[in-house]
């Protein structure tokens, strides 16, 4: 039973980082924005306090066990899907298929994860839902923009439900010698990917000069990207002893998930830019919506799941 100490250490480490961040945020506020007028400082402090909330929620879910973790990510998936489908094309004929997305597909996908039915949750959305959902829209008879409507809905489900469900699915991998510690995989994935995001933001704000994709996002710079990925990979590698990976394997895994995370942010920015919005939503103060915070995890989770499953899991 080394889960609890390892998890506690990781969570205490995160709490330590957040305490430091809160102190730095407070000092910056007093120095640069005593009247709350500097939007960057105010946003930074809003982000830090939202991080406290997210970490506390995650910790509670970890303590509540498998059901807690699956439930937390199902709820996050619901909020993300609500944000995504707010921006996609659909008309009145899609009412049933939209209802099915929220109240049938989403609960079933997370239920299949909860009962560890890999053969089903791996293909449910890309096969069964992919084929059946357009039927619901077709039955209502509207053909206007049909392909656009069904593709965007399918995309929303793949991103917000399918990909995200691979985070709690990590609980069910069977890795010899790692039994009972799978929650560490989730904590590790989220920690490394989000640390990379945060450090990309920090390095970008401090040193950012050269934009990676000026058409997509003004805030993504090469300086931020490299600084963020290297810092997160270094810290992730230093934590190799709590994972099933050797130090070298941890380097590879961290690079893989941080780069996937960056791609996630890039693709999601492209969608936002196309739809003319700055954020996906407004529910996480300072960050925007759920997808704004989860985009990197959404892209990293399925790859992390499958690579870990292929090389380390016996199932």
């Amino acid at each position, binding site marked *: 039973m080394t889960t609890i100490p390892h998890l506690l250490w990781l969570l205490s480490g995160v709490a330590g980082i957040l305490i430091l961040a809160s102190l730095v945020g407070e000092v910056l506020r007093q120095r640069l924005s005593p009247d709350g007028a500097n939007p960057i400082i105010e946003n930074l402090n809003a982000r830090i306090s939202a991080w406290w909330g997210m970490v506390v929620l995650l910790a509670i879910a970890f303590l509540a066990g498998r059901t807690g973790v699956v439930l937390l990510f199902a709820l996050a998936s619901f909020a993300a*899907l*609500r944000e995504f489908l707010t921006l996609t094309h659909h008309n009145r004929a899609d009412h049933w298929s939209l209802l099915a997305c929220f109240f049938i597909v989403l609960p079933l996908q997370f239920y299949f994860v909860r009962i560890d039915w890999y053969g089903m949750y791996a293909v449910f959305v890309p096969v069964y839902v992919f084929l059946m959902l357009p039927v619901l829209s077709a039955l209502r008879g509207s053909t206007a923009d049909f392909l656009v409507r069904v593709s965007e809905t399918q995309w929303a489900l793949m991103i917000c439900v399918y990909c995200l469900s691979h985070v709690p699915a990590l609980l069910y991998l069977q890795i010899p010698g790692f039994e009972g510690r799978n929650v560490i995989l989730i904590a590790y994935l989220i920690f490394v990917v989000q640390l990379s995001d945060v450090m990309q933001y920090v390095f970008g704000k401090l040193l950012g000069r050269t934009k990676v994709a000026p058409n997509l996002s003004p805030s993504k710079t090469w300086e931020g990207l490299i600084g963020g990925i290297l810092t997160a990979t270094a810290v992730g590698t230093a934590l190799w002893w709590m994972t099933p990976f050797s130090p070298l394997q941890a380097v590879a895994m961290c690079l893989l998930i941080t780069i996937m995370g960056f791609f996630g942010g890039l693709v999601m920015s492209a969608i936002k830019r196309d739809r003319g919005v700055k954020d996906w*939503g407004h529910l996480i103060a300072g960050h925007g919506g759920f997808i704004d915070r989860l985009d990197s995890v959404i892209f990293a989770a399925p790859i992390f799941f499958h690579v870990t499953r292929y090389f380390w899991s016996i199932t």
Partner: protein
Amino acid sequence: MIPSVRSFAASVTGRAISVFARFITAPRAIWHGIEPVQAQRVYFANHSSNGDFVLIWTVLPPTLRRHTRPVAALDYWLKSPVRAFIGREVFNAVLIDRRPEARTEDPVAQMTSAIDEGASLILFPEGQRNASDAPLLPFKSGLYHLAKARPAVDLVPVWIANLNKVMPKGEVIPVPLICTLTFGTPLHLIEDEPKEAFLHRAMAALVDLQPLASAQG
């Protein structure tokens, strides 16, 4: 029912409806050119769904919510005991009769007396749900008469975006999608302003809020 039990049931029901509205629409209020502060106001909004006033009511801060009463159609809200309970007890609606031939009370008089009692109002000047492709149906004259009778009260335009997609007319189960409510700069009747000009100005003020909802979304 004993009055205290009744009012407790009403407050619990109100809370439950609000929570449900938040779960489905995660409503977001944008205050643009106006602040959510205590002042006597008439919020006038576009009407695409029966959930409209619930959303306005939900995003108002609790201190404002307590004094805010929706103006609603009597023929709809008194149709069943459940609706009557929700309309009268939960939302304390000012129920007006849309049928001139049948009514015993003048709607404008009902609204002004609610204002004189200190209430703010939520009003849908289109008079019916807008199922057309136009952003707004032509306003009924009630808003003008109200503005004329109580010129000091702020008339606040509120654009409600997306609720027609959450629950299109004729559907029973709402789809979860994010709704945005944009509160705009208050209007007042200008001295000697003709009715048509005022109603036109009020409609324009409301439609002008439409792009703000998506740009800041």
